[in-house]
């Protein structure tokens, strides 16, 4: 890797050279990563959390490596969304650690937390599009907030991600979220989550409330994200069939604990009564 020196590159040994080298190595890793020795990018270690007297999480440990897709399954109200909020540092755990790219996020300062959040994109259950802004402004929002890109570049980026999620930019850009169908809203939300190219994507029940055909399309979109953008995905869902299609890892949450974790195949083969019951 280091032998290849493009024209006009900085002198070997200089600081700029080394920085560029590091960048290149990172890019390589992102493109071809996924080996078993990979460190976990998102990880929860023995996390406890309660709201008042209600203990929601009681010692949850899970993780997902670069290039993997983790599906967290569980009934409603068990704390699946809560786990995502912990990863985004919208909540802090009572006990335990939440690690993003190896750093404990409950220990970082506020500005560092903001920088960490820029490494993640989140698709909320109800899409959470800003309903006073049209599709363009919604998708462009993270770019205007966090980059210094010019108007033209931002427009290109927005059109690019909208095409990626199979929406016709020319048609949807000026629309307000209230004019979109549920499936389209979900796609716009995905576009907004990936527009600043975060290495980690979080989905909260991406297919709940959608018809079977749209559900399939969204699942395919998530697969395409991993395949083409090589991001690490965490999906929270109660839809086992959907999980079987998209997951590389699954974890089943019940009563504040992970009662099963393994590949979708392992989950399919397990004898555990609750897992089987949940699988249906």
């Amino acid at each position, binding site marked *: 890797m280091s032998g290849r020196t493009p024209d006009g590159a900085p002198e070997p040994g200089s600081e700029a050279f080394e920085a560029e080298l590091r960048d290149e190595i990172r890019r390589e890793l992102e493109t071809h990563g996924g080996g078993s020795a990979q460190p976990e990018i998102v990880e929860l270690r023995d996390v406890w959390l309660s709201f008042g007297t209600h203990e929601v999480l009681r010692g949850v440990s899970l993780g997902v490596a670069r290039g993997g897709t983790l599906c967290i399954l569980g009934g409603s109200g068990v704390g699946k969304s809560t786990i995502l909020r912990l990863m985004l540092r919208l909540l802090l755990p009572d006990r335990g650690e939440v690690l993003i790219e190896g750093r404990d996020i409950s220990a970082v300062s506020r500005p560092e937390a903001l920088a960490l959040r820029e490494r993640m994109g989140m698709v909320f259950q109800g899409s959470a599009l800003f309903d006073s*802004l049209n599709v363009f*402004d919604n998708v*462009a*929002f993270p770019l*205007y907030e966090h980059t210094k890109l*010019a*108007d033209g570049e931002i427009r290109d980026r927005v059109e690019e991600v909208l095409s990626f999620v199979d929406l016709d930019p020319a048609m949807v850009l000026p629309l307000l979220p209230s004019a979109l169908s549920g499936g389209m809203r979900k796609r716009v939300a995905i576009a907004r989550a990936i527009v600043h190219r975060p290495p980690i994507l979080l989905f909260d029940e991406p297919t709940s409330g959608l018809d079977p055909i749209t559900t399939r399309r969204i699942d395919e979109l998530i697969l395409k994200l991993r395949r083409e953008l090589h991001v690490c995905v965490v999906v929270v869902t109660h839809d086992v069939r959907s999980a079987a299609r998209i997951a590389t890892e699954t974890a089943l949450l019940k009563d504040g604990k992970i009662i099963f974790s393994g590949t979708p195949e392992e989950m399919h083969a397990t004898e555990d009564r609750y897992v089987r019951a949940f699988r249906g």
Partner: protein
Amino acid sequence: MRRSEPITWDQMRVGFVLIVSLVLLALCVLFVGRIGDVFGERYQLVALMESASGLRPGAPVQVAGRGVGQVERVEFIAPEERGDSEAAVAVWLGVNVDIREQIRRGSRARVRTQGLLGDRLIDIEPGSPDSAILVPGDTIGTAPALSYDELLGQAADAVLGLTQLSNDLSATLARVSSGEGSLGRLLVDEALYDGLVDLNENLAAVLGPIADGEGSFARLLEDEEFYDRLVSSTARFDTVTAALAAGEGTLGRLLASDSLYRAVASSATRANAILGLIENGEGAVGQLIGDETLYEEFLKVVVDLNAFLTEVRANPGKFIPPIRVF
């Protein structure tokens, strides 16, 4: 949202409204300032007076009834600086320079009240053309604020009224102390005596069971604290009665009144007549009392009320409406 934004409608609307309001505000300050005469150049005059008569800084200064400035401050003159003049306060006037030549040596400043609300102001009589124009810092002559004759006349009326009142008062007190009037007559009335004897018998009947230690009232009688309180209220009652006997206060005067006694006596007679009619079952009230069904109705109401109260006591939350702000 965009990096480079054209001017939008909302910006224009907001800007327009801001400008309109600022213009209105400026107009207001301008007109009020003109009336209050705060923009014109002023010079100071001082008027030495016995009393400021409630003048405050900001009070208008007029020449021949037209506003020309404001009172700026009112200061006491130190006793040692007064000399042989009676003046106790120095009133500083800010006067518009445009009317300088109206105010001359012979001008007199006086405190006047204007309008229904009695606003205080200073009015200056213009001076005659042959005397000198006052320069800034000069002392202006003053005239008395009020007509003393009028004041004395009003005071005399008040004094006469007071004398009359005190005469009446002493006459009344004399009669009370000599036992005249209704108080005295109440004391020698036979009928009252008979009534009291009857009352006593009734009381004895009521008090019998209590003396035998029955009921809650009897328990009350054994209560130490209640006794103490009773003693203290009796003592207080004593002082009140003493005051009454001495004919003090409104009540004393009431007791000494003859007409009151007659009025009470006549209403007692009339009440007697009415009660007689009722006893004979005459009139609506009489019929009501004789009516059995009414009694039963009443009993039912009492029973219902009892049940209701029991319910309330057992379950008070149900009957108290929750207090909500939202």
